[in-house]
């Protein structure tokens, strides 16, 4: 009986996905499924998982770590409790004025059933993108991608304070520093710590919950590499549609 059913299913012709309403497609997308075929007058649908798309080991990312070390951060975002010790440490270490920021924490209310929500905090910082929109936008080449480490830095002497990079940054991670008369941003603590042989960044060191994992993405022994390349772990980046290819990754658990 089941064999007959299998044969019947195989004999069906794909009627094309063009006639499916976009609401229905979207409903499936929310479940993590893509409709690839329609059979038996729309009664049967063939679907495939699109879950792999959010994993980091998609061709776009895998083994494309052109820097040595290729500095990167993984944020285990569900562990964040918004104690803001990272922000305090960053302010102190990098002399960030009260009106500025190099890292921030966002609060999300994720819906969890009727009228209920769960809180989730999400730290954000410069994503040190592989294709940084800010670098492309800078008219004086004051902001640049360090050819060795991939860190997006600002040359204060070249910066004219036009703020074009601020507008170009998809993550709002640049501010105008009145004292420097230049744009200031996260440099993964390069000036204050890494260049002096101190590891990791001030924020990662200050975090009591182990949210911020900092390291070399090109080193298979590093924790960031292992987290990003874990095939059973969902990893995502913020605003992937910008095509900036960030080096700051998010995960839970």
């Amino acid at each position, binding site marked *: 009986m089941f064999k007959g059913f299998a044969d019947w299913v195989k004999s069906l012709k794909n009627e094309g996905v063009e006639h499916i309403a976009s609401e229905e497609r979207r409903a499936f997308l929310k479940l993590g499924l893509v409709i690839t075929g329609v059979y038996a007058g729309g009664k049967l649908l063939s679907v495939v998982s699109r879950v792999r798309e959010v994993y980091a080991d998609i061709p776009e990312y895998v083994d494309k770590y052109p820097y040595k070390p290729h500095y990167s951060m993984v944020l285990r975002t569900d562990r964040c409790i*918004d*104690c*803001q010790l990272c922000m305090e440490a960053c302010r102190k270490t990098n002399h960030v004025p009260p009106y500025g920021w190099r890292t921030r*924490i966002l*609060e999300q209310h994720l819906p969890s059933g009727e009228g209920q929500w*769960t809180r989730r905090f999400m730290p954000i910082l410069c994503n040190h993108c592989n294709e940084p929109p800010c670098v492309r936008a800078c008219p004086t080449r004051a902001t640049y991608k360090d050819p060795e480490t991939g860190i997006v830095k600002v040359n204060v002497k070249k910066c004219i304070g036009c703020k074009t990079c601020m507008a170009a940054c998809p993550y709002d991670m640049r501010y105008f520093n009145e004292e420097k008369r230049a744009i200031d941003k996260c440099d993964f603590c390069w000036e204050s710590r890494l260049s002096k042989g101190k590891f990791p960044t001030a924020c990662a060191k200050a975090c*009591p919950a182990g949210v911020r994992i900092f390291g070399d993405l090109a080193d298979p022994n590093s924790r960031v590499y292992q987290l990003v390349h874990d095939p059973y772990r969902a990893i995502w980046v913020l605003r992937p549609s910008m095509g900036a290819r960030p080096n700051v990754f998010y995960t839970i658990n």
Partner: protein
Amino acid sequence: MKRNILLLLVIFVGIGFLLHAWPSFSQEGEEEAGYPTYPIIFTKPLKAVLFDHKVHVEKAGLSCEDCHEDIFKMEAGSTQQNEDFNMDSLYKGKYCGVCHNGEMAFASNTRCASCHIGVMGYERLLKKQHSSESSSEH
């Protein structure tokens, strides 16, 4: 004329007394509920954890003696003066960890932001308290 002034005086004093007593009216919820209705906020060792009596009494069905005074002192927020009031102690089954061990209630090392409201949540609460206080003064 004199009587009118006296009447006005009585009314003013009455209103003043009412307004003075207003803040204590809002405490009446506590008498009725049998537990503190204001939020218990811990700010040590870091900001901030919110404890809600309502959830623990009405949903979890706990009585006062279940936690007081063996696990937590009655005085609100006094436990945070203890040096070992941290997550490690919770994992070892102290304080919240007496119940939040994954068996009686969700484990202490899960669902962090259920109790941790952060600096943002703390400041929001302070603002709320401040605005309710200042509105009762007017």
